[in-house]
């Protein structure tokens, strides 16, 4: 790893990503010694709740032999007394060997990382970045498709606010994947993301209809369209309905097409997909642990080199 902080998928090189995925595969095959990081403490600073991300980081550090220090719910933290994030992370830095930050404001992880010397991992900043989700998404694709080279990936749903989507798109660009973005017009990629992707030479196309591309896809990554993005209930129902998939939708897909979803899903993937060979979203969720173990292992081992 060339970075002490893991802020965005954009700032990870292809080599960095491959290092983490390779280590995750090793960990999957043979779990490391339970005392590998026996002295290491991981601070979990979650300024908004995210139970799964929190649990998987806690599991990861404990399976490496270390322990987690939890800031606790934000209502009981110093932030409610008006303490700045910059101050909070500087205090926590004194307690822990690495810090995981989840925060509702975009850019929070970047800013916080400027105030600490211990490795800081961004576990989601508002509508911004969520790089460890991206790493586990890529790991799932690599395990399922065998190789990240030459993939054709469809990404469907809320592409405007979906931060997992933006991180994933930056990372896939480093692997030169063909990317098809499928969304209602009102939820298409934000201008700044589209700009970046074009700047970095992404091969991308945008569509409003999955039918146009389903036959080509190696991976179909589905995200949720949230009710709160629409002023009107009827409009939401109508639009969300057009971006739902079921087993019938996948009849046109390639046999090996891998269907992924960051979970939780509501009804954007019908339960009848679960029994098909396409469904990989539970594996994807499970991969959170080996991938976060791999990342922590690499970051916490840097001092020893």
């Amino acid at each position, binding site marked *: 790893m060339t970075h002490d902080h893991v802020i965005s998928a954009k700032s990870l090189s292809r080599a960095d990503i491959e290092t983490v995925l390779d280590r995750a595969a090793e960990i999957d095959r043979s779990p490391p010694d339970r005392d590998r990081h026996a002295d290491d403490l991981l601070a979990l600073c979650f300024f908004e709740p995210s139970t799964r991300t929190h649990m998987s980081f806690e599991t990861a550090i404990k399976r490496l032999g270390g322990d987690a220090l939890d800031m606790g719910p934000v209502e009981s933290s110093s932030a409610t007394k008006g303490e*700045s*994030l*910059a101050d909070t992370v500087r205090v926590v830095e004194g307690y822990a060997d690495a810090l995981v930050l989840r925060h509702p*404001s*975009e850019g*929070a992880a*970047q800013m916080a990382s400027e105030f600490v010397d211990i490795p800081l991992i961004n576990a989601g900043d508002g509508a911004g970045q969520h790089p460890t989700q991206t790493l586990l998404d890529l790991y799932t694709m690599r395990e399922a498709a065998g190789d990240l080279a030459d993939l054709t990936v469809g990404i469907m749903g809320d592409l405007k606010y979906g931060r997992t989507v933006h991180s994933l798109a930056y990372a896939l660009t480093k692997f030169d994947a063909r990317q098809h973005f499928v969304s209602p017009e009102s939820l298409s990629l934000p201008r*700044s993301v589209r700009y970046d992707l074009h700047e970095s030479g992404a091969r991308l196309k945008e569509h409003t209809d999955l039918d146009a591309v389903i036959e080509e896809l190696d991976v179909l990554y589905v995200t949720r369209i949230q009710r709160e993005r629409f002023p009107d209930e009827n409009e939401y129902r109508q639009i969300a309905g057009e971006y739902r998939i079921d087993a019938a939708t996948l009849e046109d897909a390639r046999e090996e097409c891998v269907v992924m979803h960051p979970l939780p899903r509501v009804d954007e993937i019908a339960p009848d997909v679960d029994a098909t060979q396409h469904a990989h979203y539970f594996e994807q969720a499970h991969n959170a642990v080996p991938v976060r173990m791999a990342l922590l292992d690499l970051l916490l081992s840097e001092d020893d080199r």
Partner: protein
Amino acid sequence: MNERDESEDTGDGESSEESAHELRISKIRNGTVIDHIAGGHAPDVLAILGIDSATDEVVSVGMNVPSDRLGYKDVVKIEGRELSQDEVEVISLVAPAASINIIREYDVIEKNRVERPSTVEGVLSCPNRNCITTADEPVATRFEVLDDGVRCLYCGTIIRRRLTDHIDV
């Protein structure tokens, strides 16, 4: 070299004929002259410097002054103020050909062309209300300078048009 001379002897292609016309703007004793602003952009420069109707500094503005190099140019003279590096860098975004002359006792003691920086710090504010730089944190805004705008280095938001709508006052 006094300020009058400086506009005659800029060595950057302006004719002395032009400066004869330029005398319409009064001299200043101490302060800054921002010259070679593209015609019509003086109000942008004033906005960046936070100069508005509530300002009590002595400010003279020349607009659409004939210029060999720019066709028409604007000039801003501010008595009693020297600009910060951060201000100069943001000015370069709206007036890429500008020169900044620092005047003391009617003499030009320093003359610099603005250079387009790779990033600008402070002065601009991020239009994303959910950006961490808009919260009460001890950081200045930082923007990467793009070919046709700037991008917040914290949240990624791009400002393309009307930079002067985003001055942090």
